[in-house]
């Protein structure tokens, strides 16, 4: 047996062993070859308005939530800013009064 043949046999053996050693990965990584084709797969594209009701995701809650978050964040920041400014200005007035009294 030539050295090339011997090398080819070793490679083939290693490949067979690797193949037998990793069946779960292969099974997870590839879809079943003989899976029965669904109607969606045959048609390739299902317009969103033709989907069954339980598969549709309503848009309105996402839209309302996005606008509520924007409004909420702005109003909370505005209130926090107003309160901080009011507090600092009150403290400053007190400090100026006590400095003038000394």
């Amino acid at each position, binding site marked *: 047996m030539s050295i090339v043949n011997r090398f080819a046999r070793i490679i083939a053996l290693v490949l067979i062993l690797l193949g037998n050693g990793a069946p779960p990965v292969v099974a997870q990584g590839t879809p079943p070859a003989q899976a029965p084709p669904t109607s969606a797969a045959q048609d390739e594209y299902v317009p*969103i308005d033709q989907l069954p009701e339980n598969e549709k*995701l309503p*848009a*309105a809650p*996402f*839209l309302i*939530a*996005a*606008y509520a*978050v*924007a*409004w909420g*964040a*702005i109003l909370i*920041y*505005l209130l926090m*800013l*107003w309160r*901080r*400014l009011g507090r*600092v*200005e009150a*403290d*400053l007035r007190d*400090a*100026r009064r*006590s*400095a003038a009294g*000394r």
Partner: protein
Amino acid sequence: MLTRSVPAMLMAALAMFAVAPYFIAQAPYESTMGLVQKIFYFHVPAAIMMFLATFTCGIASVAYLVRGKAGSDRLAEAAAELTVLFGIIVLISGPLWARKAWGVWWQWDARLTSTLVLWLLFSAYLLLRRFGGPGTEKLAAGVALFGMANVPFIYWSVNVWRTMHPKTTVVPSLVPEMRFPFYWCMVAFLLLFMALIKTRVRLAEQQDSLDLLLAEAEG
């Protein structure tokens, strides 16, 4: 007391925000996304304000590092807070749109990830200012420079890398019926931005005056 321009800008902005839903509702539906596309009218102006705040903070930080004026530092701190505020709106409204449009809340693609990094950088800036103690102004200014350098990458990321996020050509290609509510919201956000930054700078000025008075009283 604040100057008269701040309450005027604030009232104008809030009035425009109150009317905005009417104009947004009148705008036509985008053909593939439908109703959820209307998040765009707040999401994009908020993102633009986030970039504007970032540049304001970055440029004010450079001015502070070069000239050392306290006014520049106050402006930088105010702008950093607004970057975080508008960033929160962008980073929450975006996933709400994505969940419907893409079917997932989040994708670790270039645009989303770099925006999150920007928000984290400016949150770090604020934490540094809050808890860093005296003398951290210059260190924070350096952080702001890194944040500003991030903006061009965020903007061009959708054109350079493969990403699910819509490209920068969306706004210029808007139909006129969509353009009006978009620019209406842009002006409202801009007025709000100016009112907030002036108020926040005023707060920092008053705080500095108070600190000075207290220091004089003690020593």
